[in-house]
């Protein structure tokens, strides 16, 4: 099933509740994934997006289906925010034929090109050049589409980041580079990976404009992406958003979390939490009662998605062999 993933108006009750609901969907989706992973129904390498929902939703809300998103290993949130396809995502994680990649891809490789979701990536930094390519295609074809590349602060130290930004700037391509600085790359803190964590300084090296964004505040993200979009759609070349956030979950399934409790505590407060944050910004437009109602709705949708996935068949080996084995 697909949930609505885009609204036109902003600042209205409907807009706030829609944004909230999409962030909530990601949050609850990821919590289910965690459970199902522990229960052995989901497997492989799973990286949760919890705590970063404002970035995916804030960015994707501003995009059209015809705009492109290239994601990462931590891509469930991006997928849901861009496509709204809860069932396809869940079925993919369970390796079913009804999954968004027909069960061939798994957590790191969700695809829905018709909705502009051009895939996650298991290689850190691997998606940035691909995003450049979609930006190139948009310009080549003369459409007004933009291409968004999500990547972590860890990925910003890969050569592909540098090469792609330079090339995008040279060719004035409609690329929006969204760095999600969640302060860790696996167990490595940002100060040990990134000589200067101010991405705007890196962008300046290529004459690329950049904005620093509070990645836990969906309204800040939203403002920034709209600025980026008008720059990029005007043909002025790439734009970088440096979204500061925090990875509140461990890196992935297999890795224990040894970060200090005090540090974790700071980021687990309601003030930091992107969902609470949005509600507290609009107590009048989004009441506790409404939130409770959204919880029910989201949970029902997720129940349906899990049922759908569980009842879906696995891919057929013969068909796969026919189609893919040379």
């Amino acid at each position, binding site marked *: 099933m697909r949930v609505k993933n885009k609204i036109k108006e902003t600042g209205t009750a409907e807009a706030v509740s829609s944004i909230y609901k999409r962030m909530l969907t990601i949050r609850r989706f990821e919590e289910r994934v965690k459970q199902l992973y522990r229960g052995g129904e989901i497997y492989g390498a799973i990286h949760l997006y919890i705590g970063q929902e404002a970035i995916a939703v804030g960015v994707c809300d501003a995009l059209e289906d015809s705009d492109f998103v290239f994601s990462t290993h931590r891509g469930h949130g991006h997928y849901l925010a861009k496509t709204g396809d809860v069932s396809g995502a869940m079925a993919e994680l369970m390796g079913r034929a009804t999954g968004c*990649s027909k069960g061939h891809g798994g957590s790191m490789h969700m695809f829905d090109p018709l909705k502009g979701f051009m895939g996650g990536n298991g290689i850190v930094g691997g998606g940035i050049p691909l995003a450049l390519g979609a930006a*190139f295609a948009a310009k080549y074809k003369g459409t007004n589409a933009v291409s968004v590349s999500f990547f972590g602060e860890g990925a910003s130290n890969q050569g*592909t980041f540098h090469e*792609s930004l330079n090339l995008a700037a040279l060719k004035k391509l409609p690329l929006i580079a969204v760095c999600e600085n969640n302060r860790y790359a696996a167990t490595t803190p940002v100060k040990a990976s990134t000589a200067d964590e101010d991405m705007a300084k890196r962008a300046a090296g290529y004459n690329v404009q950049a904005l620093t964004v509070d990645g836990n505040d969906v309204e800040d993200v939203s403002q920034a992406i709209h600025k980026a979009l008008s720059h990029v759609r005007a043909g002025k070349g790439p734009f970088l958003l440096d979204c500061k956030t925090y990875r509140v979950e461990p890196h992935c399934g297999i890795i224990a979390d040894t970060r200090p409790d005090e540090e974790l505590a700071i980021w687990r407060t309601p003030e930091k939490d992107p969902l609470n944050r949005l509600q507290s910004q609009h107590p009048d437009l989004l009441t506790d009662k409404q939130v409770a109602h959204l919880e029910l709705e989201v949970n029902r949708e997720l129940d349906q998605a899990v049922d759908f996935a569980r009842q879906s068949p696995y891919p057929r080996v013969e068909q796969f062999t026919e189609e893919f084995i040379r």
Partner: protein
Amino acid sequence: MKSMTYIEAMNEALAEEMERDPSVFIIGEDVDVDGGVWKETQGLAERFGLERVIGTPISESAFTGLAAGAAMCGLRPVLEFMYMDFVDVAMDQLCNQIAKLPLMSGGKVKMPITIRMCGTGTGTREAAQHSQSLEAWFAHIPGFKVVMPATAKDAKGLLKSAIRDDSPVVFIENRNIYYKKELVPEGEFTVPIGEAEVVQAGSDVTVVTVGYSRSKVIAAIEKIGDACSVELIDAKTVDPLDMKTFLDSLAKTGRILIVQEAHTECGIGSEIVRRVVAEGFDLLDCPPVVIGSKNCPTPFSPVLEDAVIPSINEIMGKIMLLKQYKI
């Protein structure tokens, strides 16, 4: 037929395909203004515009990814590496992205990319970092087709097939034959991917050539003269292999030699041997033999380089050895 060089033939293929299909574009270092360091794209920027003939900075990873992303959005990039040895800096985009995304997306994404490996070859004293023939790397990774044209005609015909193919095709050229005039059919034609060619029929020994080694084997056959009747097969495509053509020949000769420029270990020759023994064991009168470059990086000095790459003498020797082999 008209007389043209390998480079001219490829240039013509590019022009024809760009004319035919507006989604075809070219990207690579120096391809725009001066027509590439090998003159492979000469005149194309003038003819099709700088929007379709894209010069790049020295950022192979990024521009390979650019081609891939563009292909995912329906374009048909022709991507250039100035020398095949430079693919090392872009292996992730090639092997983890281009080769795998079609499968990982459940078939939702296509990758119609032609990856030209220009300037491949040995024998020109360009030393270890400019002398590699890395087809085996790409044959080892599922997801690519790999072709190695050895004549101007095949260069044109296979390049057109590669551009039209919906899979990524690794197209490996050889610099030693770039500027030699050969006869090429006039007008529109393609050469199919996946088909080997029996260049010369023979009955004593089958020799399969991979890419440029065709020239060396032809020279060896000329020297051998009547002493051995060689059936010469140009593999042309090394992934997928045209085993039928090889086995049909083996059924006649019972003896097979494979000649490649690449290092022997884990090369295409080894793969052909694996399949020949698996599929044609009973046809063999003697062990299949592979000639490739010796097991060291290619040294610069001409005396050393000549000693480590396949030579006409070595090929002659092995052909005669195979002919004379008694079980």
